[in-house]
């Protein structure tokens, strides 16, 4: 394990160094309380003090629209498969979003492997950035153990006040340290400062955001399939699909053909789809396997908290809070979970906070 230091005033130099070799994207402020991963040319444009961006970094791994094949009707039915990628450095990724990328990596590395995804992934360098406190009241990263780094990055930065300390996790990360000549090795005192910061974080993130143990969540969902909570969501959800679009671990897609204006050539592309759309599971016989919005909402929650446990041994909810921020109907993930917990009598005040509202806002 190697730790390096970067002076605060050299952040700009680091971005410039990275930008020489690839596209650099970082959170950029887009008006009040809105941030987006956007291409930057220098460090001033980036905002490190941000609440989760509107769209998660998944858009670089799996763009909203991605060409899978192109065709030319003069060549008969033949199609040329397309695997696109571009060298990108993702700068300033929070631990919840690192977890989201880890989820996607698992899904698309599973056989049959998704070459389109993997080609992009292999061209992306990730520089994580630690949250020293809660971003806002929607986050539930403690609940899913994503408030501290669990890998999934090349370099990981922590703000120590007067400087950044960086953990080097991969050979790609090491190369940046070596070739940029901007870093110095961390001293004992710096590691002690990092440990103090983490200790303070343990106090801030002492309890889960809701009153249940991390380990009890699968059991909660085992009991909640027939819950009344889904009937409540059925009445409120407007099936807009915002929640799945902004989710860092939602990856469902549709495959669509599109002729070009010449009507001779065209492409087959995939596009983000949402299990919240009414026709998502409809088949030709007219049957719709998740006809009610409540059933579709339940499916979304189970895909985050129950189904992935067996397949991938982890939750697919990253705790980022985006679905709650973006919901047209103010359906709040923490509130939904609390309703389920209360219904099952599984409340444990020692495990987590009672109220879903009061979180200390971030101080950086």
């Amino acid at each position, binding site marked *: 394990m190697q730790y390096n230091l970067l002076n605060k005033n050299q952040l700009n130099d680091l971005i410039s160094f990275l930008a020489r070799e690839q596209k650099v994207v970082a959170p950029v402020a887009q008006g009040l309380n809105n941030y987006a991963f956007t291409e930057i040319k220098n460090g001033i444009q980036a905002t490190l003090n941000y609440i989760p961006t509107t769209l998660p970094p998944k858009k670089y791994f799996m763009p909203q629209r991605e060409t*899978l*094949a192109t*065709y030319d*009707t003069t060549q*008969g*039915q*033949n*199609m*040329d*498969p*397309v*695997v696109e990628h571009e060298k990108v450095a993702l700068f300033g990724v929070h631990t919840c979003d690192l977890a989201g990328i880890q989820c996607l990596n698992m*899904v*698309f590395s*599973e056989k*049959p*492997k*998704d*070459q*389109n995804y*993997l*080609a992009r992934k292999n061209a992306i360098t990730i520089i994580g950035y630690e949250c020293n406190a809660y971003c806002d009241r929607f986050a539930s990263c403690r609940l899913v153990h994503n408030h501290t780094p669990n890998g999934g990055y090349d370099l990981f930065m922590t703000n120590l006040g007067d400087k950044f300390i960086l953990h080097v996790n991969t050979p790609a990360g090491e190369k940046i340290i070596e070739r940029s000549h901007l870093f110095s090795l961390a001293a004992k005192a710096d590691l002690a400062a990092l440990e103090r910061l983490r200790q303070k974080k343990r106090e801030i993130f002492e309890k889960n955001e809701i009153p249940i143990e991390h380990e009890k969540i699968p059991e909660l969902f085992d009991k909640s*399939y027939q819950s009344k909570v889904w009937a409540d969501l059925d009445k409120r959800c407007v099936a807009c699909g915002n929640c799945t679009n902004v989710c860092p671990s939602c*990856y*469902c*897609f*549709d*495959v*669509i*053909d599109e*002729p070009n204006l010449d009507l001779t050539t*065209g492409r*087959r592309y*995939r596009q983000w*789809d949402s*299990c919240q759309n009414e026709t*998502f*599971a*409809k*088949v*030709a*016989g007219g*049957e719709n*396997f998740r006809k009610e919005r409540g059933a579709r909402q339940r*499916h979304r929650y*189970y*895909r985050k908290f*129950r*189904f992935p446990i*067996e*397949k991938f041994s982890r939750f697919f909810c990253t705790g980022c809070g985006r679905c709650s921020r973006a919901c047209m109907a103010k359906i709040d993930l923490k509130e939904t979970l609390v309703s389920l917990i209360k219904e099952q009598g599984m409340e444990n005040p020692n495990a987590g906070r009672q109220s879903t509202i009061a979180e200390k806002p971030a101080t950086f």
Partner: protein
Amino acid sequence: MNTKSPYQIKIGKILSVKQMTSMEKMFEIALPGEDLSHAPGQFVEVSLLGIGEAPLSVSSSPTKQGSFELVVRKVGKLTGALHKLKAGDEVGIRGPFGQGFPVRILEGNDLLFVAGGLGIVPLRSLINFVIGNRKNFGKVDILLGCRNPKEMLFHEELAGWKERLDVNFNCTVDKADPDWKGNVGLITSLIPGVTLDSERTFAVVVGPPIMYKFVIMKLLDKNIPERQILISLERHMKCGLGKCGHCQIGNTYCCQDGPVFTYEKVKAIGGAI
């Protein structure tokens, strides 16, 4: 492009097209230089550029070499466009995909086939495989049901199955027409009349979603164990690769883990039928 895309199609050449009913056509398709090498119960994604792809069951038995057959009901964009094609035209093929019927496990046992409506299309692949390897299987019963005689598929083949001494074949229609001389009633009405040894019988059921519940009830009445009841589930499918999410039931991806499941498994998934 050096990486192999799972979306790469193969070119299939249509050898013949046969109108089967007013709604269905059968397409015989060859992949130049190779066999599809499918297992009974698997499906392919059929592609027409500019239109898209659709999952379609392979209806022919793997024992048929050099080409395979699809039976397509015209319901929308892709299936409509397919219906306009003729012998000599090309289509794109991906697959075969999914877990078909567990032929190895079925060997040595008695088989009860129950097909409703279009369900005969994938089931025919297994039935013809069994008939082609008849000595490897025990007693064979085939029950077939459809809404009316006009919807009945594979007339000549059905007549052939009926004539065989080593196959018991019976069929019924929900609603007869003046020319119909056979049974009238739901497919469930045929099950009590079958004599079977429940220990060594595997029931293989394919049909519309509504049919499963009622047929399975009758099969359980006959004491056929849950793990010896096999069904094939239809779901909306896009990628066939266990990724796009459309076909998901509970924790199961129908395109990769299915479409063939035991009733025991389906019951455990919950919400599948």
